[in-house]
């Protein structure tokens, strides 16, 4: 399995009761000693060294704490352009912000990957794209409106 976080690419493959991680030119052996999903905690043996890591997942983001340092990484390998968010059949805002443009109306037919609206948040423009071909069932926001994180923006039906 190949994944990329920010610009760091790595490959993970099962091996025995653990995994072999290939990262840059290094080969690292990793074993999961214990995983507690509720706490997001993993006790790992990385090349024989005990490491405790906490990981939380927020769509493409990974919040990771190791040795008291917290970092936010973005998984980039399976979300190349724009950011995709789906929730309960609707497309939701990934972060609080302001709707910059809405390019579709209820009833419009849309193609997978088509940009439906854009949100501006913290000086970044985020494109909300269709996850599949379909028809716009409802648009809940309009240009200039302030939206909260995870607020449903648009619903698409097949």
């Amino acid at each position, binding site marked *: 399995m190949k994944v990329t976080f920010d610009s760091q690419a790595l490959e993970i493959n099962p091996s025995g009761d653990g995994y072999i991680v290939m990262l840059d030119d290094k080969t690292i052996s990793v074993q*999961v000693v214990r995983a507690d999903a509720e706490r*997001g905690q993993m006790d*790992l043996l990385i090349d024989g060294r005990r*490491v405790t890591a906490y*990981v939380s*997942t927020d769509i493409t983001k990974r919040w*990771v704490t190791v040795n008291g*340092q*917290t*970092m936010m990484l973005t998984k980039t390998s399976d979300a190349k352009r724009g950011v995709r968010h789906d929730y309960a059949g609707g497309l939701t805002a990934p972060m609080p912000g302001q709707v910059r443009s809405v390019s579709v109306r209820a009833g419009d037919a849309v193609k997978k990957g088509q940009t439906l609206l854009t949100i501006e948040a913290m000086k970044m423009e985020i494109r909300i794209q269709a996850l599949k071909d379909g028809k716009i069932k409802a648009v809940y926001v309009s240009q200039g409106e302030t939206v909260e994180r995870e607020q449903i923006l648009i619903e698409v039906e097949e």
Partner: protein
Amino acid sequence: MFNKILIANRGEIAIRIMRACRELGIKTVAVYSEADKNSLHVQFADEAILLGAPAPKDSYLHIDKIIAAAKKTKAEAIHPGYGFLSENASFAQEVESAKLIFIGPSADSIRAMGDKAESKARMKQAGVPTVLGFEGLESEKDFKKAAEEIGYPVLVKAAAGGGGKGMRVVNAGRELSEAIESARREALNAFGDERLLIEKYLTDAHHIEIQVFGDRQGNLIHLFERECSVQRRHQKIIEETPSPLLTPKLRKEMGQAAVAAAKAVHYFNAGTVEFIFDPKTSDYYFLEMNTRLQVEHPITELVAGIDLVQWQIRVAAGENFPFKQSDFIQRGHAIECRVYAEDPANGFLPSTGKLLQYIEPRGPGIRVDSGFAAGSEVTHFYDPLLAKLIVHAENREAAVHKMQQALREFVTHGVVTNIDFMQAVLAHDDFAKGKVTTRWVEKALESNSLLFNMQERASVLHVIAAALADVAFAGTKSQPAISNETDPFSPWKQMNNYRN
């Protein structure tokens, strides 16, 4: 003693006060805004009353609604916490008029200390050292004359002020008239009062404050100092006690000055007298008095060995404060770090969102006062304080090490916090030497001598952990349950031990 108390606040301080109430066998009433309906302070209370919309003026600052809530629930007293209405003399007055007890000083004491010009005049009268300056000036000519007499740099500040509003540092004569004009405008907007005072501005000073405590019978003592010089934008982030700068002689002198200051306004209950301390000369000057419980009160509690909030309640109920000055000593060293949801790399701007993970450190000598749990929402309506992490150890060095370790074990995901930034401060040589002044953070940031940018230190271990998480947690519930229930009294939401 009271049977029931209403807490007119939110977040960690509301919970802190409710804990004291429980220990005293008193029932608690929480008040909350629509934005806080799922908050821990609401779940922690015996009863909760919705005040209104999220904006403070419609909820936590709405005096009539709060007093009505107390009446409705038959609470006998109101604890205001800090911030919001805690230093509002009219609120204290109205609480008393409604035949309820205000847990704090008298409205007169609040009013006298709330006015910078009046309090300074009273302090001069009481023999408390004040910064060289003038009150009651009006014309620009008078200000100019005063500034020249004092010597630049000077500080122009609103008489009715607080929180850094209506305050300007003036470095030279040519900046004066514009500073007066803008400070006046700001003061008028913020406080409806354009009176200004002018005083000497100390450039490299420490902020050292003295905790005082008294009862309605006139017993009043001090509970030593807190060193609060690590600040950004006039807001404290790390506090400690004892101060590494004070000698026993200075401590005694400042303690006596604080007691004199408090007695000058017939003070009772918990209060804090703030001083500016010049490390070059060891001179100290009265800055202001905070007529309420402070955010950083826990470090005093640990070192002096007293529960300040319980005693606030007891003296409000009319009990005597039975201790003498000589009953207290400072035992060991305590430090508080304020964990804020804010991004130090981005001008300390608040960071909002859902707490995807939240794990507090534990262990001997570690105390966490917080109002959040995994799944909590950090909104932009209120102060972004997530938690206060407080440690107590034998001496300063041991306390710093304990704090560094505790911060390492504090896991917060979903919002950016200032934890890395505080680690950088604690590890800095200037902090170790007790050389941090109130402008230190600003200067350290300008000169890039603090390294804390979390994105610059992505380690191989982080990347491996991120990649493995998908595999290791596969098939299990990877996120804490986030409650969407709207009824704050649902039995499913009673979380007596809310730490995950």
